[in-house]
């Protein structure tokens, strides 16, 4: 099934199992069902718990945080993750901090969902991947959907942890298929080999003998998979892909045994250059196993640029499967 369907089903299941859960967002009512149709069917089934809001990203996140702080779990939908900037104060200064700034732990079951990423030609202010700007806010967890992770489990896990979280949802990924039955494609399989974590592994044959490891969030999986396919068949470079559902806080510790064995480590993300999630991951890896690495972790990401609207220009900025393939091949050959 497509990722969007899986996500929609996850929301329906969450509303069925929790009678207090609310959702706020712009244009979320049926029959429209949200700008990306992720909330389709919800307001028909649960009319008093789905609120369509004015165009007030800051306000709606604050309202959701208020509900959460008195024990009413709330999901806030921000139509494009670019607009999360408007809600920065409510997210970073109120909701995240409230978990601990009152001297004791406060439950705050708030989930802010953001469609994110480029590839549809929506232009500089509707195409960004802003995960990196929310890294390092104490109390705020960042997640990203992927074809490996069932969204039902993901969302119920986030809500049960009852701390503020953002869920980034790559818009192109919405239209792509969930992985199923352990198979990613004709060559690659996937599994969850790190107990106690949510990290998925996509691999060919024996993952411990892979030439390199690529760490990437869910929105990058299909592009990375394409690159891995080409790298294997054109260059005989085998890669293992690791996909965390939770981007931050990120704990590299469980991955170290796998990372130690490999010749090269890459982090691939759609974010533009500078202050990236990959930098955070690389720092964690370096600080633990620097002496065992043959080279520093290589960061693969989009260019240091705003994201142009015209498709041929957007493709020059945004990281693609060829970007990943060239970075990996270049690392081995060059």
């Amino acid at each position, binding site marked *: 099934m497509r990722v969007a369907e899986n996500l929609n089903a996850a929301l329906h299941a969450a509303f069925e199992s929790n009678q*207090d859960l609310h959702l706020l967002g712009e244009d979320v009512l049926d029959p429209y069902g949200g700008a990306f149709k992720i909330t389709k069917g919800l307001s028909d089934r649960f009319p008093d718990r789905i*609120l369509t*809001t*004015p165009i*007030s990203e*800051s*306000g*709606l*996140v*604050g*309202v*959701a*945080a*208020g*509900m*959460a*702080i*008195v*024990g*009413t779990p*709330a999901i806030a939908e921000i139509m494009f993750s670019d607009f999360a900037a408007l809600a920065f*104060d*409510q997210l970073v*200064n*109120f909701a995240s*901090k*409230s978990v*601990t*700034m*009152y*001297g*004791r*732990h*406060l439950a705050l079951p708030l989930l802010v969902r953001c469609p994110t990423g480029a590839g549809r030609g929506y232009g500089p202010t509707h195409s960004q991947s802003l995960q990196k700007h929310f890294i390092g806010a104490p109390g705020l967890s960042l997640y990203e959907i992927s074809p490996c992770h069932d969204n039902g489990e993901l969302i119920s896990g986030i809500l049960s942890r009852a701390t503020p979280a953002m869920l980034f949802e790559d818009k192109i990924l919405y239209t792509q298929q969930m992985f199923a039955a352990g198979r990613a494609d004709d060559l690659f399989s996937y599994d969850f080999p790190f107990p106690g974590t949510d990290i998925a592994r996509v691999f060919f044959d024996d993952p411990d003998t892979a030439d390199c490891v690529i760490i990437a969030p869910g929105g990058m999986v299909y592009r990375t998979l394409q690159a891995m396919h080409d790298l294997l068949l054109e260059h005989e470079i085998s890669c293992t892909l690791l996909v965390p559902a939770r981007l931050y806080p990120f704990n590299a510790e469980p991955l170290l045994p796998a990372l130690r064995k490999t010749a090269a480590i890459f982090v691939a993300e759609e974010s533009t250059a500078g202050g990236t999630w990959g930098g955070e991951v690389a720092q964690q890896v370096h600080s633990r196993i620097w002496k065992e690495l043959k080279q520093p972790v290589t960061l693969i990401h989009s260019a240091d640029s705003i994201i142009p609207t015209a498709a041929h220009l957007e493709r020059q900025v945004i990281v693609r499967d060829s970007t990943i393939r060239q970075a990996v091949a270049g690392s081995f050959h060059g």
Partner: protein
Amino acid sequence: MMSTLTTDSVTDAGLSPLADDDLRLMLMIRHFERKLLSLFELGELNGTTHTSLGQEYIPVAMSALLDMRDFVFSNHRGHGHYLARHRDPCGLLAEIMGRDGAVCNGVGGSQHIFRDRYLSTGVQGESLPVATGVALALKRSEPGQLACAYIGDGTWGEGSVYEALNMAELWGAPLAIVVENNGIAQSTPTTKELAGTIAGRAKAFGVSHYRTESTDINRIRAHLAPLLDRVRSRGEPLVIEFATYRLGPHSKGDDSRSPEQMRRVAEHDWYTRYAAEYPAQFAAHDGEMHALIDETATEVAARPDSTWDNL
């Protein structure tokens, strides 16, 4: 839902007599705030503080109209709000001084307090959308309860105030917004940073508005009681605007007003007026509350530092 504007004249002919409990509460807040300023001057306090001298009667008036299942949101100038709600000068002073027994273990300090259904935030305007969400949750699970949010005149510069008013009115949130309009925001007089009026703003969203210049608690309560009942029963927002006077500086030592302005402020101070109009009752309680605060301060200062298990 709209309501007619009401304004009390400033010179209500004489203040009505206060219940002892109300007077003691107001005096406790007054002496607490004074004590803070003197502790700062003596270098015994860390960080900053925002005293509510001159405005103490507002939360005391409101306290009789709220119950402990209502939610109260406060701001940076919130000591009076907290003390009127929880009557806990020890816990509050310990919080400000970072001592054992602090209401939030010294982590939140003066501006960030959470206890039961009382919460204060440090960023202007931030509390209103949150209060709207709380009000909606209360309407659903505990109908009849309301959320009361204290803000100032300067807060009306923040966009989130308008987002909250819009949504509160659209969705019928039982939200009482108490505006302590003391004519100055930090160092800037309201005339320089508020175009139009607060009444006009409430009206623009179709939200009921009530304004008073009175400092008479009994009269205030009499006027507000039916308005707050409507908030509870109908589930709708209300803006209550108190024209009041900030006796002290914005935080400490930063008062930009002229002596003439300060004289006018002092004229409206309930403290001197009650002392003049009810001297016996005043004297019976003033000294006692002063001493209570002094002892509290001495005792709290002697406590060990607060601990926080997050680190």
